C-alpha cells in the first residue's frame, strides 16, 4: 500500500528521463524505459491490488501539501478504493500492452522514437493521477494532463498540417468541457469549502436535497467536463479526427485513458449525480444519442481508424446510458471489457495499416486473412466482443448487463433500452462490416506487405493476451440465467452502490435471446451487404439520395460543419477583423487631434517680426485695459 505513489510516479519519471535525455539514448534503452516504467507500474498495481483485496478498505496516501491559500487547501494525495483499483489495473495493464506493442511498431520512425515514449508515459502517468486523485483538483490536473498528451500525440507527425489541426481541435474541444468542469469545482468549493472527493460527497448527501438547483448545476457542469473528455454529443467531434496520431496512441486514447475519464468522473461522483435526477437523465440521453449517432456513422466510414473511433464513441455512449440509469457497476464493467477489446482492435488494425504502408482506407483492402493470420484472428475476436456475440465473448456479458439495467433499473426506461438495442444491431453490423471489408473478399493490393516490423514477440504477446481477455473477462460477472457469477460487482460494491431493479414485462433471459439475436442479425446483414452482394450498397451510393446520405453519415452527421459555421468562423472572423486592435484607434485619434492642434498653432508662428510686435502690443493693451476697467 505504501507503494501507491509509485504507480503514477514511475511513468512520470519515465517521461522526465526520456524528455531530458531521450534524444541521445539508444533506441532499446528508450524503449525499455518507456515500456518498462509502465510495466513496473502495472506490477506495483497488481501488488497493491492484492494487498487491497483482503479487507477492501479505501487507503489514502498523502504526499505533500499542494496549495494552501486563504482557507483553500488541497493536497497531492492519492486514494485507492475498489473503483480506482479496477481503473488502475486496466490502465497500467492495457497501457503496458500497448507500450510493448509500440516498441516494435514505432521502430520504423526516423526520429521521435523517444519523444513518442515520453508522451505515452506522460499520458499514462496523468491518467493514473486522475483515477488515483483523492481530491478534485488533483483529478483536474490529471484530467488536463491527458488532454495535453492527446494533443501532443495526435500531432506526433507534426509537419502535416492536418495532424496539427486535428490535435488543436481535440485540445480545444475538450478544453471547452474542462472549463465547464472548472466552474463545477468552483461551485462545489463555494458550497462545501473543500474539494476532497469523499468530503464533498458526504456533505452533498447531507446538505443537498435531491433535485435542488445547486446540485443540478454542479452535476451538469461536471457532466460538461465528462462529455468533453469522453467524446459524447455535443462535444464528440474531436475524436474521429484524433485518429491522425500513430495507432498505439489511438489504442491508448480509446482503450485505457482519456475517453474513459468522463465515465470515471461520473462514477466517482455518483452521489452528486444521484442527487440531480435531471442531470442523470441527461447523462442517459447523451449516452443514447451518442451511441446511435456514432453507431450509424460508423457504418459509413471507409477509414479503418475512423470507424473504430466512432465505435468507441458508441461504446462510451453505452457506458453513459448505464451511468444515467444508475448502473454504476455495469458502466465500469463495460469500461474494462471495452478496454480489452478496443485495444485489441486498434493494435490489430495497426498491423494491417503498417502492412499496407499506412493505407487506412478499408475499401482498398480485402482478403488479408491469409497474409495476416494473427491480425485477422485478433481483429475477429475483438469484433466479436464488440458486437457482443452471445456466450463466447466478454462484450456480451458487459453489454448485456447495461441493456438489462437500462430497462430493469428503477431509473431505466423502455426508450433507453430500445436505443441500446438498436445500437447493438448497428454495432455488430459495423464491426463485421470491417471484418469483411478488410479480411475477406478480393485482395486489392498484394505486393506491399511489410510484416517484418510486426513479427516479434513484443507484437504477438500483447495481442494474444488481449484477445484472451476480450474473450474471457466477461466471466467475472455473468447474469443470473448464465451462472450468476458476481465477482466483479461484489468487488466494486465497496465503492459503488448496486442498482435497485424493478420488475419488468420481460425476463432477463428473454432479453438475452433478443439481444443475441440482434447481434447475429447485425453480422448477417453485414455479410449480405458487404460481402455477399456489395454491389447493392455501391449502386445505392451512386444515386443522389444515397450519395447525400452517405456523405451525411460519413461526416458524422455534419456536426463539424455546423460548429464551424456557428463558432469557429465567427470567432476567426471577429479576431481577424480586429487584428489591428480597434481600441488603438481611439488613442490614434487623440494623437491626431494633437497633431491637428499643432498645425493650427504653428500657423501663428509666421516668422514676421512685425506680427510678433503687434501681438505683444495687443496683449499689453488688453492687460492694461482689463486692469484699467477693473
Amino acid at each position, binding site marked *: 500500500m505504501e507503494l501507491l505513489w509509485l504507480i503514477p510516479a514511475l511513468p512520470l519519471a519515465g517521461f522526465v528521463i526520456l524528455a531530458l535525455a531521450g534524444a541521445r539514448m539508444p533506441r532499446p534503452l528508450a524503449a525499455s524505459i518507456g515500456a518498462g516504467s509502465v510495466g513496473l507500474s502495472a506490477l506495483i498495481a497488481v501488488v497493491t491490488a492484492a494487498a487491497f483485496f483482503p479487507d477492501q478498505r479505501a487507503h489514502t496516501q498523502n504526499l505533500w501539501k*499542494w496549495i494552501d491559500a486563504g482557507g483553500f487547501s488541497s493536497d497531492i494525495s492519492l486514494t485507492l478504493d475498489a473503483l480506482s483499483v479496477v481503473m488502475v489495473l486496466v490502465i497500467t495493464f492495457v497501457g503496458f500492452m500497448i507500450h510493448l506493442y509500440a516498441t516494435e511498431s514505432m521502430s520504423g520512425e526516423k*526520429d521521435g522514437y523517444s519523444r513518442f515514449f515520453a508522451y505515452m508515459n506522460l499520458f499514462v502517468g496523468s491518467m493514473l493521477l486522475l483515477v488515483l486523485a483523492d481530491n478534485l483538483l488533483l483529478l483536474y490536473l490529471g484530467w488536463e494532463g491527458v488532454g495535453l498528451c492527446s494533443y501532443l500525440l495526435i500531432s506526433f507527425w507534426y509537419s502535416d498540417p492536418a495532424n*496539427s489541426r486535428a490535435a488543436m481541435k481535440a485540445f480545444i474541444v475538450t478544453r471547452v468541457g474542462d472549463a465547464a468542469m472548472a466552474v463545477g469545482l468552483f461551485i462545489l468549493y463555494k458550497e462545501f469549502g473543500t474539494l476532497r472527493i469523499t468530503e464533498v460527497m458526504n456533505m452533498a448527501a447531507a446538505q443537498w436535497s435531491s433535485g435542488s438547483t445547486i446540485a443540478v448545476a454542479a452535476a451538469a457542469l461536471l457532466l460538461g467536463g465528462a462529455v468533453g473528455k469522453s467524446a459524447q454529443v455535443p462535444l464528440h467531434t474531436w475524436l474521429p479526427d484524433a485518429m491522425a496520431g500513430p495507432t498505439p496512441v489511438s489504442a491508448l486514447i480509446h482503450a485505457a485513458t482519456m475517453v474513459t475519464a468522463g465515465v470515471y468522473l461520473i462514477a466517482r461522483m455518483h452521489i452528486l449525480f444521484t442527487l440531480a435526477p435531471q442531470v442523470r437523465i441527461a447523462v442517459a440521453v447523451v449516452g443514447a444519442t451518442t451511441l446511435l449517432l456514432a453507431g450509424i456513422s460508423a457504418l459509413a466510414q471507409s477509414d479503418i481508424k475512423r470507424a473504430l473511433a466512432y465505435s468507441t464513441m458508441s461504446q462510451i455512449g453505452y457506458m453513459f446510458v448505464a451511468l444515467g440509469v444508475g448502473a454504476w457497476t455495469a458502466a465500469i464493467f463495460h469500461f474494462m471489457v471495452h478496454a480489452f477489446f478496443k485495444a485489441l482492435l486498434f493494435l490489430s488494425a495497426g498491423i494491417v495499416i503498417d502492412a499496407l504502408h499506412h493505407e487506412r482506407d478499408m475499401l482498398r483492402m480485402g482478403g488479408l486473412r491469409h497474409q495476416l493470420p494473427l491480425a485477422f484472428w485478433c481483429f475477429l475476436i475483438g469484433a466479436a466482443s464488440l458486437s457482443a456475440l452471445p456466450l463466447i465473448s466478454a462484450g456480451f456479458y458487459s453489454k448485456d448487463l447495461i441493456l438489462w439495467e437500462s430497462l430493469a433499473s428503477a431509473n431505466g426506461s423502455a426508450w433507453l433500452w430500445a436505443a441500446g438495442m438498436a445500437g447493438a444491431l448497428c454495432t455488430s453490423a459495423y464491426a463485421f462490416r470491417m471484418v469483411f471489408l478488410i479480411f475477406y473478399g478480393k485482395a486489392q493490393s498484394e505486393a506491399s506487405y511489410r510484416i517484418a516490423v510486426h513479427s516479434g514477440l513484443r507484437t504477438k504477446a500483447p495481442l494474444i493476451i488481449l484477445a484472451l481477455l476480450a474473450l474471457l473477462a466477461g466471466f467475472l460477472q455473468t447474469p443470473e440465467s448464465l451462472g450468476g457469477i458476481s465477482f466483479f460487482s461484489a468487488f466494486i460494491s465497496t465503492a459503488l452502490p448496486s442498482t435497485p431493479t424493478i420488475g419488468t414485462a420481460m425476463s432477463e433471459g428473454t432479453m438475452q435471446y433478443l439481444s443475441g439475436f440482434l447481434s447475429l442479425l447485425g453480422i448477417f446483414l453485414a455479410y449480405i451487404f458487404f460481402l455477399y452482394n456489395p454491389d447493392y450498397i455501391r449502386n445505392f451510393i451512386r444515386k443522389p439520395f444515397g450519395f447525400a446520405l452517405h456523405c451525411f453519415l460519413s461526416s458524422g452527421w455534419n456536426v463539424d460543419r455546423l460548429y464551424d459555421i456557428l463558432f469557429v468562423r465567427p470567432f476567426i472572423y471577429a479576431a481577424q477583423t480586429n487584428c489591428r486592435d480597434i481600441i488603438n484607434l481611439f488613442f490614434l485619434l487623440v494623437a491626431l487631434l494633437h497633431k491637428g492642434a499643432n498645425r493650427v498653432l504653428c500657423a501663428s508662428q509666421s516668422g514676421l517680426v512685425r506680427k510678433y510686435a503687434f501681438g505683444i502690443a495687443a496683449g499689453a493693451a488688453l492687460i492694461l485695459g482689463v486692469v484699467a476697467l477693473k
Partner: protein
Amino acid sequence: MMLVLLIAVPLLAGLLCLPLSTIHRKAPFWLSLAALTADLLVAASIWANCQTDAVAAASAGRWLISFRIDWIPQLGVGIHFALDGLSLILVGLTEFLGIAAAISSWSEINERAGYFYANLMFTISGILGVFMSLDLFLFYFFWELMLVPMYFLIGIWGHENRAYASMKFFIFTQAGGLLMLISILGLYFIHGRATGIYTFDYVQLLGTALSEPEGTWLMLGFAVAFAVKLPAVPLHPWLADAHTEAPTAGSIILAGLLLKTGAYGFLRFVIPLFPAASAAISLPAMIIGTVSILYGAAMAFSQTDFKRMVAYTSVSHMGFVLLGIFAFNEVAVQGAIVQMVAHGISTGMLFFIAGALQERMHTRDLTLMGGMWSTAPRMGAVTLIFAAASLGLPGTGNFVGEFLVLLGSWQAGAAITAIATTGLIAATVYAVWLMHVTFFCSAGTEWKFPDFSFREMAVAVVMIAAIVAIGLYPAPLLKVSALPVRAILNNTYVVPDAAALSQQSRAAVKPGVIR
C-alpha cells in the same frame, strides 16, 4: 541597510558599465550578471531569515525589514524602504528575470553594450525601488526612474518601429504617472490639513479620513496609473507596440516586471489607502479584468507577429490578476500574486524564445514560420512547455494562479467568473495556434538554424524548473504572501512603532514651509 544595498548594487553596476565597456566588450555583461546575482543572494538571505514561523508570526502586519532616513524633512519626504512578503516575492522575481534579461542580451546587443547594460541596470534598480518604497514621494521618484531608461532601451536598441513604440510607451505611462502625482499631492494635503502632519510616508497616510468624492477621485488617479501599467483594456495599446519593438531584454523586463508594478500598486496603494473607494469599484474592476482576459486572448490569436502575440497574452493574463485583486478575498488575491510570478516567468521565457528566433531567422512573422520542430527540437520543446503554461495547464504555476483567482472570484461574483473561465478556452486557442504555426505545421520552407545553445538551454531549464516548482509546490510562495494579503484585505497594515511615529512627526510639522 540591506535594502539600500539591494537598490544601490544594480545602480552602481549600471554606472560602472559605461567606463567598463571600453576595457572589454563583454565586461558590462559580466558585471551586470554579477551584480544581479549578488542582489538575488541578498534577497534570498532576507527570504531565508523570514522563513521561520516565529518571525513570520511576530511580523504580522509589519515589515520584515525596513529602513528609514529623512530626505527632505521640510516637506515630510523620507527615504523609507521596507519589505513584506509581497514585495519580497516581487523583488526576487525582479532579480531572477533581470538575470534572464541580461543573459538574453549576450549575443543580441553588440552596439554600445556598456550603455545598454547601464540602462538595463537602471531600470532594474528603479523597479526594485518601486517594490520597496514606502514613501509616496520616493515611490513616484522610482516610478519615473524605471521609465526613462526603459524608454532608451526601446528607443535605441529596439526593432524597426522603435521610435513610435518608445514614444507611445512613454506618453501612456507618463500620463498615468501624472494622474498619480496629482493624487499623491491631493492625499498629502488632505492628510496634512486634517492632522497637521504633512508627510508622504505611506504608513502614516494609511487610514487618512477621506470624504467619499475625495476618496473616489484620489483612488482613480492611482488606479488609472496602475491600470495603464497592468495593462487593463482599454488602456493597453501601448503594450503591444512597446513589447514588439523592444529588444529581448526589454520585452522580458516589460512583461515580466513593469506590468507587475501596476498590479503591485493596486495591492500596496489603491486598496490599503482607499479601502472604501476601491471596494466600491470592485465590480467594474472585475468586469474590466474579465474583458481584458477575453479581449487579450482574442487579440493574441489574430496576431501574425510572434512578439505581438505574446504581448497580447500578457493583457489576458494580467486580466486574471486584476480580477483576483478586486475579488477581495484571500484566495483570489493569493492567486493573483502567484499569477504575477508565474506570468513573469512564462511570458518572460516566451519573449526569450521570440528573441532567439528573431536572432536566427531575422523575422518575427508567424506566417513565415512552421515545421521548425525538426530544425530545433529543443526550442520546440521549450516553447511547447511555455505555451502550455500560458494556457494554464495544471502542473505549471499559471494554473495555480488562475485557478485560485477564479476560485476566489467565484465567491465574489459567480456570473462574471463563469465568463472569465471561458478565457481558459480562449487561451488554449492561442497557445495551440502558436505551436501550430511555429513548430508544427510545415509551411514548405525548410528552415536551417542552430538549436538552443548551452547558454540558452541553461536559462530555459531554470525557467522550466521554476514554473513547474510553482505549479506543484507553491507553498513557500503562498506562505510568504499570506500575511501581507491578509493585512491588505483586513486593513490591518497600520502598525507603525510609536517611537518612529513621533520622530517622524517632529520632522514633518513645518507648516510655514508648506502653506
